[in-house]
């Protein structure tokens, strides 16, 4: 099983490299530039494919060690599933944060993101949750928005304050 995983990883590298090599073929060339824009990408693609093939061969000879490493993973069974779901949760929340940051503005989107992310990761205390969520939102606003002059996304909360 671990060997199959390594083969799949190598195949992903090979597929990416093949696509990269193929895409390089569409790049225009110019007489004044002997190598052209496609040369390095092609060289890199071939290099990655060679190393990926070597990875398969090495993994085959090291399959015993791979099995030992797989067994050494502290997360097994339900805990592993929970962990993977938590990662998915972080990804979904972060995606939503990026999506809503512009329409909602910095303050509201960051406050909501911090609140939900902390809840997802496990809240040690309600008081701590409130302090950290409000504290981090205001600290980042002061640091980036006020001191460093970054134009943070403006939403209705900011407009309400400004007007």
């Amino acid at each position, binding site marked *: 099983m671990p060997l199959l995983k390594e083969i799949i990883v190598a195949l992903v590298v090979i597929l990416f490299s093949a696509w990269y090599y193929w895409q390089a073929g569409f790049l225009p060339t110019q007489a004044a530039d002997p190598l052209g824009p496609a040369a390095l990408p092609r060289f890199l693609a071939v290099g990655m494919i060679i190393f*990926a093939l070597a990875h398969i061969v090495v993994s085959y000879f090291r399959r*015993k060690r791979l099995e030992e490493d797989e067994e050494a993973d502290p997360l097994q069974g339900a805990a592993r599933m929970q962990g993977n779901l938590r990662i998915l949760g972080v990804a979904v929340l*972060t995606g939503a944060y990026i999506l809503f940051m512009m329409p909602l503005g910095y303050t509201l989107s960051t406050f909501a993101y911090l609140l939900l992310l*902390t809840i997802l990761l496990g809240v040690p205390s309600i008081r701590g949750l409130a302090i*950290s*969520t409000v504290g981090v939102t205001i600290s980042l606003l002061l640091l980036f928005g006020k001191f*460093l002059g970054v134009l943070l996304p403006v939403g209705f909360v900011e407009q309400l304050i400004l007007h």
Partner: protein
Amino acid sequence: MLDNFIMGAQVAFQPMSLLFIVFGVFWGIIGGALPGITGSISMALLLPFTWGMSPDIAINTLAGVYVGAQYGSSITAILIRTPGAPASAATVLDGYTMHKNGESARALGISLWCGTIGGLLSVVALILLALPLVEVALAFGPPEYFATALFGLTVVASLSGGNYIRGFISGLFGLALATVGMDPFVGSSRFDFGEVNMLGGLELIAVMVGLFAVSEVLVQARSMSGWEKIKDTKLATKMPSMAEMKGLMPITLASSVIGIVVGAMPGAGATIASFIAYAEAKRWSKHPEEFGKGCAEGIAAPETANNAVTASAFAPLLALGIPGSGGAAIMLGALMLHGLRPGPMLFADHPDVVYGLFVGMFIANFAMLGLGILTLQAACRIVNVPQPYLLAAIMALVTIGTYSINNSIFDVLVAMVFGVVGYFMTRYNFSPPATVLGLVLGFLVETNLRRSLMISDIGWGIFFTRPISLVMLMLCFVSLVFPFYRDFRDRGKKKSDLKPGVVPAGELL
């Protein structure tokens, strides 16, 4: 020269000048520590405020920011695996591990002390060798730059933690990422999927934040046990001992030389210097197997080198008017803003400004040490909060930090995508630092390779007929072969230590 130096000291030791140098260093530490706000951005933000100042105070303030930012970027690299600037990417490898081992102040202390020594030696080099350094740097043409970049790439072998094949794939992947965007010669777009935001290439800081910080948050979110509240606060706030610093002195001096020489080369910069210093430290170490596991030398080498770049990067600027880095470019702007034209005549016409800068940089390094010591304990305690709060705060910080680079949501998206890529790379033992190295060096490799071949009309001999290039290529070869030789030698030793007939599991290859 002594007269000029005394004049410079009189300028730099004015109370207002001292005050603004300290303020500049403080500003630099804060800016450097924030992901997305590099030293040059911190300088640029302060530039308008220097308009009303006298030229010597303005230049010294900005020099203070530049110096402070180098240390600032290592604080977050060590404490939350988020380098504030690319130059601290190599520090993550051992700095963050040492912090996770509960020795946060030791890691920060090594970074601070070694960085100060590197910075001070760099100022000495700038004073004594400004013009000779520039001559050395100018002897570098495209073939030499290509060979140097290639030498930098051989560091991949050191960053792969024994998984050489995966390390090389990671490095090549980084080089491939560097080809995204407009071609530097033909001007055609490459691998940008028609996305305007990718025309200028992938934003290095966004990729780095993703590969290091976001991926680490994902790794910790999966297990929720990778980081635990540090119970032994005595250990966490214990600074490195004098004996330890003495032991690190050879590596500090060697890394200073690397930083000074690389810093004087226009376009090379602190990131390359720190990676090369890390690799050399590992190569010559008596215990290379400890690198990546919280080794003091693994922090000392990159931190010394990236601080040693600060003053020597000003050598081509002051002597020739060529800004070799982002920070030097801002400094050029500041000099011109105050009616000063860099070049050999600057030394003759405005010795007060030039030598004031030299002395000011000395003061800035000491100010960095003082402020660093004062803020170190607080920094160690700030990250000692329960994991859910810390991880959520890191995510918000890196998101806003990445957004602030270009005020672009697209950069944030890039950081998050590379966070996922970095997570899978870490999980399958690939090397995110090697990818960052490839991305950093990609432009230098490609442009100088193509430029060299244009000069020689596709004659590859150009790389072997020029002495500097040839020496660098020979070093590349040694650098690539040495880790394999060392592993082979160590394996032989291990086997000879075992009883006859016993072969350890997994040692069949």
